[in-house]
């Protein structure tokens, strides 16, 4: 990194790596940069609506504590770095709404493990970001707190369900944000907002305190503007958690260690099924150009087939709603969260509490899920979907015999306008057509910016083998060293600096 250039960047334009360098060099304090972001959020977030809760007082207190620690020579991994948490991670003493009226008044007395990890790493929490209600959506249009606007074009969606985290990062309202991905909810908004997002291998990041949508698919992961930043965040997020039975007990490597490995000899699988009808031609071109760039770096592109790709969306829309229908049953007005007024009896309390608390998409998925599990339909739907899931996983296992990573588009098209998917839920579901299979198989996946179509960002998806996040980050980082897409910002977001995107 060229120090003279990065020094001159505005605080909000710095990456996490640059912020750490600046803090360590004493160029600014955590309090200063935190205040800077808080001011900026106040100034600009009215436009984007990327935050649900801003923690002004506690963020400054955390920043002060971080500065003190640094002064005493105790410098944990992200000491003093501001970040934001998707409002799906429970934060002790701070409202955690999951984007829903059901939890609008929910203040948990405990932290998610991910939140604890960041606190232990000395990070400063600016606030909780907006999201599709209960993580169900691909456009952030279902939030109780109103839709999030894409900073690239505020008439368009940022993607979802982690639309708030994506928009906040894209608008430089936080250098990094946590998010979750069940069918593409990190990768797709990352693609639509022109930022970098990573979904780890299932079981890599603890789900304790992360409000469950679909337990066998959910994973928490980082969103930031560079692969290096995602690596820094993943170092903190990944851990074995004995409180989570699905957490895998496996050593966490230093995800920044292999970033600079050259790509010569890398075998990249290109699934034929990801380049068929439904893919926006501009998106396709940008992705193909990106793949050519990788070839220039010594990678070999190998055409592969993931034959059961077409079944991924149907299988997902049985499994995810089924698990969600049970996971969301606890929201009953008895122990926390919303309760309807003047229930006339128990049944009335349940029926109205849940009708009032949940948005339409959430209700729809709960009912679909209940249907797929109900007597007489379990075999045809749930059991069948779980069989298909195994076939989908096998496709990947077979592919990874021949290739090191699999790449293609993240999303079928760039950001669409609000209401564009209309009343047709299925049209919305097809947004996740390239990302969903990865969740079903439990594999890690990333999206990095790789182009612009009509001034709208396009994402390049990288799918890695199990626990091969280091390799994905390496590929992403090398791509970002050679290209500038990740440094593009929406008009008016990046401030003028002496030298803008310097040659790297």
């Amino acid at each position, binding site marked *: 990194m060229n120090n003279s250039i990065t020094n001159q960047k505005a605080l909000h334009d710095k990456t996490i790596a640059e912020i750490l360098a600046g803090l360590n060099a004493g160029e600014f304090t955590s309090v200063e940069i935190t205040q800077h972001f808080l001011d900026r959020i106040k100034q600009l977030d009215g436009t984007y609506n990327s935050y649900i809760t801003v923690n002004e007082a506690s963020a400054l207190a955390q920043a002060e504590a971080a500065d003190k620690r640094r002064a005493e020579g105790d410098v944990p991994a992200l000491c003093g770095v501001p970040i934001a948490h998707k409002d799906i991670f429970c934060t002790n003493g701070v409202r955690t709404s999951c984007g829903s009226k059901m939890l609008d008044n*929910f*203040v948990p007395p405990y932290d998610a493990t991910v939140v604890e990890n960041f606190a232990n790493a000395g990070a400063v929490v600016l606030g909780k970001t907006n999201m599709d209600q209960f993580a169900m959506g691909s456009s952030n249009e279902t939030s109780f707190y109103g839709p999030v606007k894409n900073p690239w074009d505020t008439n368009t969606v940022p993607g979802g369900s982690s639309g708030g985290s994506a928009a906040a990062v894209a608008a430089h309202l936080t250098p990094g944000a946590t998010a979750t991905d069940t069918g593409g909810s990190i990768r797709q908004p990352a693609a639509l907002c022109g930022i970098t997002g990573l979904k780890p291998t*299932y*079981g890599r990041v603890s789900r304790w305190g992360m409000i469950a949508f679909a337990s*066998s*698919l959910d994973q928490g992961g980082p969103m930031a503007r560079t692969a290096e930043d995602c690596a820094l965040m993943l170092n903190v997020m990944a851990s074995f958690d*004995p409180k989570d039975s*699905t957490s*895998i*007990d496996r050593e966490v490597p230093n995800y920044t260690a292999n970033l600079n490995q050259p790509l010569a000899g890398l075998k990249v699988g290109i699934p034929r099924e990801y380049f068929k009808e439904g893919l926006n031609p501009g998106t396709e071109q940008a992705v193909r150009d990106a793949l050519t760039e990788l070839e220039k770096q010594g990678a070999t592109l190998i055409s592969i087939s993931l034959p*059961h790709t*077409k*079944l991924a969306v*149907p*299988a997902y*829309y049985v499994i995810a709603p089924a698990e969600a*229908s049970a996971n969301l*049953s606890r929201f*009953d*007005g*008895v*122990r*926390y969260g919303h*309760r309807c007024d003047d229930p*006339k*009896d*128990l*049944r*009335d*309390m349940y*029926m*109205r509490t*849940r*009708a009032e608390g*949940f948005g*339409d998409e959430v*209700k729809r998925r709960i*009912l*679909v899920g*209940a*249907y797929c599990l*109900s007597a007489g339909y379990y075999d045809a*739907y749930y*059991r*069948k*979907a*779980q*069989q*298909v*899931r*195994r*076939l989908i*996983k096998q496709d990947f296992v077979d592919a990874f015999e021949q290739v090191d990573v699999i790449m293609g588009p993240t999303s079928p098209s760039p950001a669409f306008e609000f209401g564009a998917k209309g*009343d*047709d*839920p299925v049209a919305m*579901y097809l947004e996740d057509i390239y990302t969903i299979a990865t969740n079903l*198989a*439990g*594999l890690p996946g990333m999206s990095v910016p790789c182009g612009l179509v009509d001034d709208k960002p396009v994402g390049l998806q990288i799918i890695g083998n199990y626990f091969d996040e280091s390799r994905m980050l390496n590929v992403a980082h090398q791509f970002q060293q050679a290209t500038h897409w990740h440094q593009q910002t929406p008009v008016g977001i990046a401030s003028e600096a002496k030298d803008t995107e310097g040659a790297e």
Partner: protein
Amino acid sequence: MTIERADIEKLAELARIELNEATIAETTQSIADVLALVDQLQAADTEGVEPMAHPTDAVQRLRADEVTETNHREEFQAIAPATEAGLYLVPKVID
């Protein structure tokens, strides 16, 4: 698979979600659309394939039998809709 209003009403009862009379037709239609999507699964040949409930092959860790939790009733009940004498209050439960 055709789904009808009566099916939706039964599901809504199972899921304890009161449906809005005004929107019930719409709800029925949109769920029917989703089910049309998932019906595509029926075309798949899954003969002899074991269902997969988890993406990993991992097996369950068992935990030692120790009391590790302490009393946090005050904190938990501070965020509850209705409590009294340490109990959660709900409309009368009749067996």
